[in-house]
Every structure is written in C-alpha cells, then in structure tokens.
C-alpha cells in the first residue's frame, strides 16, 4: 500500500510560497501546474486516477513549511512532492521525505543541494544556479572579452551559490574577481554599490537579487552613465516584468537559465496556446514560472504514465528515469535516467531587447 495512491486518486503535495517574499515565483508556478492537472483530470486522469494537487503556503518561513510537510505527508499522505519552493525549506523537508522515499520533483530552487545524497527520490527540472552562472560568465567572457568579474548578492543560500559559482568560474577562466557587494531584500538604492563596482572596473556583474532590485540596479547603472558593463541574472530574474520595464531600462540585461523565454516564442503553437489558456483561466498574463509549473507537472504526469497502473514509489522513480522527450513549451530536451536526475541539462542565455527576452545562446 503506497501512501497517497488509491484506485481513483493520487495525491501530489507542494510546500510553496503563496504570500511571502517569493510569492511572485510560487503563485504562477502553482497556477501553471494546476492548469496541467486540470487538463489531465478532465481527460480522465492517469491510469484512471485523478490527480489531487494540495499546496501548502509557507510564506517563506521554515516553521510554516514544516507544518506544511507534516500536513501533506502525515495527513494528506501525499504520494510525491512537486515544485516545493525555497532551498532551506526543501532541505528541511528531505529529513521526512527520504526515509519514506517520497519523490521530490522539480523543486523551485536551483540550488545544488536539491540533488544531495540520497539522490534516489530527488528530481530537478533544470540546471542549477551554479551551472547557469558557470555557463553565463563563460559566454560573456568569450563574447565580450570581459576580464573583471563582479557579483552582487543577497547573503542567503541562493546568493551564496551564485557568488561562489562566479568566483569559481572566474578563477577557472583565469579572470579577476574585481569586487562583490551584499544586499538586503528591502534595499532600494544601489548607487553606492554600483559606484564601488564601477570603480573596481567590472566588465561582468552577476546578480543574485530580488526581481525588483535587479531592475533598479540596471536602471541605476545606466543613470550613472556606466554602460560598458554586462549584468547577468540567473533563472531567478528571468522574468517578463524585468524585460517589460518601460523606457527600455533593462535593455542589455543578460540572464542565464534552463529554458527559453515564453513570450519570445508567443507566435509558436504550443507556447501561444499556453499563453492564451493561462490568460483565459487566471485572467493574468502567463509568466516564465507559470510555464515552469506547467512543464514540471507535465514531467510528473509523464512519469506517472510510465510507472504503469501499479503505482508505487519504485515504479514512479523507474518511470521518471525512463523519461526522454522534447518539451516544446520550455523549448528544452528533458532527459532523466538512473544517475541523471536532472531534466533539462542545457543552459540558455538570453538578453533583453526591445521589451522582451531574446535567446542568444544555448549550451
């Protein structure tokens, strides 16, 4: 008897941020996943089982997250977790999931720990921040002959990973690490930090900041007349609103991520339909994270299908490890296998141009 599985239902859980500082990530992702599950359920479910997706709001607080895990795993008896948000929250959750062998699929955290040992029950969707920064800095260095690399980050696990990766790749490429600055999530003015980095002569600046802050940084740099520098975001800042800031404030901002921007492909069939459907369902424009949510749900559904009608954790993990398909929505090849628990291995690099993201490289 596997928990969360009955003849006509399978329970999927998620501990997410629907009201805290990362609500802008969690909300659309959950919406996207719900959209996919609604479609699947409307078509009769997977092997006759409807998917029940239960989401607990953690407000980006660990104690709340722990209550969420307690409810999902002990009360709702979730079969697997999907899209759980926050690195520390996920890690704390592993304590409970690992002994029970509960799969954790596509967490909304690009930290490397998402695939920490024991890895059997952990699956991530995309490249980690670490990889994104590695690829991004390499690209910018190669493309523009950048020499001096800098980083701006929030001192959290997220910021630390990006800062560390920046330092690592800088050293590996034989470039110089020229400066770094730290920030608080509520900081709103970056003149000081930018003056510091400018005088340090940075060519490339990697950023691990809040979305709103990222916008301000780029705008302020322009205002200060600092134009010979490339700012680079990771998937955490790879969002429509960043590109759409009026007045072309963010033009020229790079982002390294694991997928291709949705709106730049709005004319294509699958992304176009997704944008329309999402708008129709939620009366809000679809965002990159909505797309990620949908795509992660799709991965899960495919794995459930592959696992066969006798659903157990082992069968599901086998199912996951058998997946290999091209996801048109994210424009990425998704491959899992024994020993490969990461879906899309590619890192994409995009730049803001004329109010939208333009893909410039993928590797």
């Amino acid at each position, binding site marked *: 008897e596997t928990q969360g599985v009955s003849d006509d239902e399978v329970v999927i859980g998620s501990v997410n941020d629907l009201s805290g500082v990362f609500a802008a990530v969690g909300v659309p992702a959950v919406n996207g996943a719900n959209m996919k599950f609604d479609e699947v359920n409307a078509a009769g479910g997977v092997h006759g089982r409807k998917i029940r997706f239960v*989401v607990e*709001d953690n407000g980006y607080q*660990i104690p709340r997250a722990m209550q969420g895990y307690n409810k999902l795993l002990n*009360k*709702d008896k979730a079969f697997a977790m999907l899209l759980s948000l926050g690195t520390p929250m996920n890690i*704390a959750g592993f304590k409970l999931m690992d*002994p029970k062998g509960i799969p954790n699929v596509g967490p909304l955290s690009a930290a490397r720990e998402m695939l920490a040992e024991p890895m059997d029950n952990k699956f991530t969707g995309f490249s980690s921040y670490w990889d994104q920064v590695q690829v991004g800095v390499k690209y910018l260095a190669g493309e523009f002959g950048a020499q001096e690399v800098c980083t701006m980050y929030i001192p959290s696990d997220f910021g630390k990973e990006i800062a560390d990766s920046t330092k690592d790749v800088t050293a590996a490429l034989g470039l110089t690490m020229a400066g770094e600055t730290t920030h608080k999530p509520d900081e709103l003015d970056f003149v000081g930090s930018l003056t510091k980095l400018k005088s340090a002569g940075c060519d490339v600046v990697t950023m691990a900041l809040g979305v709103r802050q990222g916008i301000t940084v780029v705008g302020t740099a322009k205002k200060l007349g600092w134009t010979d520098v490339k700012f680079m975001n990771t998937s955490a800042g790879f969002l429509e609103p960043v590109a759409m800031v009026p007045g072309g404030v963010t033009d020229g901002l790079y982002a390294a991520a694991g997928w291709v921007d949705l709106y730049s492909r709005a004319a294509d069939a699958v992304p176009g339909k997704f944008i329309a459907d999402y708008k129709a369902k939620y009366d809000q424009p679809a965002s990159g994270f909505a797309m990620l949510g949908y795509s992660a749900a799709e991965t899960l559904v495919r794995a459930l299908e592959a696992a066969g009608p006798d659903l157990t954790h082992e069968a599901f993990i086998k199912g996951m490890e058998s997946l290999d398909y091209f996801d048109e929505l994210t424009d990425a090849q998704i491959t899992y296998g024994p020993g490969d628990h990461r879906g899309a291995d590619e890192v994409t690099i995009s730049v803001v141009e004329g109010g939208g993201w333009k893909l410039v490289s993928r590797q």
Partner: protein
Amino acid sequence: MRIHFKTSYEHDIRLFPDWWTFFVYATLIVVAVLLPWIMDDFYLGEVTNVLIWAIAGLGLMLLTGQTGQASLGHAAFLAVGCYSCVIFMEQGLPFLIAFPAAGILTGIVGTIIAIPAVRLHGIYLAIATIALSILTDDLIVLMEPITDGVSGKFAPMITIFGIEIERWTTPDRFYWLVLAITIICTLIYRNLLRSPLGRAFAAVRDSEVSATAMGVHIARTKAASFGISCGITGLAGALMGFYAGAFNNETFSIVISITLLMMIVIGGLGSIHGAFFGAVVVAYLPQFLSIAKDAIGGGGVAIPGLETGVFGAILILFILFEPMGIYGRWMKIRIWFELFPFARKDMFKRQKSYLKTERLR
C-alpha cells in the same frame, strides 16, 4: 461559585489554590501524556509545534507581559538557543547537558544585550530589538565557520540514556520530551510569579519611579527579566531546530519575532494561560485554515495568499473581540459560569476607557 477558605498564608503561596484546580491540571497533564495513543502522527506533530511555540511564548511573556518590555526581536534568541544547542552536541556533549547549557548561554547573551537595552522604553526598545533580529541573520552568515552560514545545520539525533528521539521517526518520544520541557518552563514561570523577583518585574512594569523608591534596582531587574526570558526562548529555539530538522540564517526571521509578540498579545498579556492560548491560535490556526480550505475547496489552490489574508483577518477579529486577549475572555466566561444564574447579561460590556501618554515614565 467556589469560595476559598484560607486558613494560613501558605494558601496564597501554593501552586494550586484548591483541590479542584489541582485536579483539573492533573487531569490535563495525564491526558497530555496519553496523547500519542489518542492522536495520529499529524496531530501529534501539530500539538508538539504548539507546545514549542508556547514555550517561546512563555519566554517572551515574562519580558513583555510581566516586565512590560516589548521585544520584537525574540527570534534572535531562538536562533542563539538553537545554534548553541546543536553546536554543543556536535562538539560531543550529550543532549541532557547541551540543552540546558544552550538555555543558559542564551540567557547570558540576553542579559548582556539588556545592559544597553534597559534604558530603552516602549517603541524604542521594540525597534532596537527588531534591529537585533535583523542583524542576527547577518551575524549567522558572518560567523560561517561555526554556524555554517547560509547552508545551515542539521539537527542531530537526540539520545537520552540511550533512547533515541527524533521528530519524524519517533514523534511520540519527541512529543514527550517537549511536553516535559513545557511543564518545567511553566513551573519556573509560575514560581517566579509567586516570589519577590516576579513582583519586582510587575513593579517595574507599572511604575519605575515607585519601584525605585521601594529599593528595586530597575536595570538589574530588567536584566534579570531579559536573561530568564531569553533563556526560556533559547530552549524553545533549540526545540524548534530539532522540530524542523534543518535550519539556517533565514529560519529565525523577523517574521517569527513579530508572530511571537502577536501570539502573546492575542493570548492575553501577563498570564501563563495567555502564552498557551496564543500558541494554539498562532501555531495552529494557519494549519486549521488550510485543512478547512481543503474541506471546502477540495484541495488545490483557489486564491494565492488567501490563508495568510484570512489569518490576518481572524487575528483582527480576535483583537477587536477581546483586546485583553483570549485569556481575558476566558476569565469572563469562567466568572459568568461561577456566578450563574446571577450574572448580568452585559456585565462585561466594555466601559468607556481612556488612555494617557506612556511617554512619561
């Protein structure tokens, strides 16, 4: 109505005013001990959580309710307790030593912080402690070599006399541990209230001038209050760490500090019951809302942030309904029953009341 016939001064010093009260609390404790056989793991986990919050609430209550010092930074002391306990254990100390040592260390830290803080009043103290709470986050990052910075730490297995205790694998044992600590902390609190120091706390809260004239050293008394309060909070912090299993610099955020203060006010400032009532509301209400939402909406998210919004709205109603906290209401209901059938309907109608400035102390 119960009438206490007092035959000696001993009566007013006793833990329980009469046999009935003793009986009530004894029953409560027996039920609490038997709980793991009554409840499933989910509810047991929630009760454990409520108890941990209640301990933290007792800590803050002592400072805010008894001594009148509002702190919005108690999450910092949760962090100190949590980190020190785990670090002590990593150094090889057994839980039975590491845990109280963490409480004592947190108490000492609190006392040291109290030295400049005793000169602050009201809102100034609240903001200073907020700053403290924010700085703690950064300090944990800066002290990476001992705290492991942003990657955080994992709570080790607790072993007491060879018995292994862990939140997920042995939830019942963990619950009993928390229950025992709750009872001990409550007793300490209660003992303080019936002894000179507890009265000195109340004196400092109500009038610093006349407390001084009675020979109460204001700074020392406040520092003592800070120390004990932080010590108890530190114990709660350690338990919170074991409850979460993993923690880092973001775990004990300012939101937790604010929630703690909210909890004791809603429970009822200045009473032990208040800490428990508040913990039930603040720690369990979000979970309850979530379950209620599932029952109504059948799972899935309807509206993002709804639970937090509703939580806020309910807290507002709590405050509007009873600004003196749930404990105030509880007392009224009790009196009503005790007086039955002689209670007037509007006996507890709020008489108009008026505030005077608190800027003068």
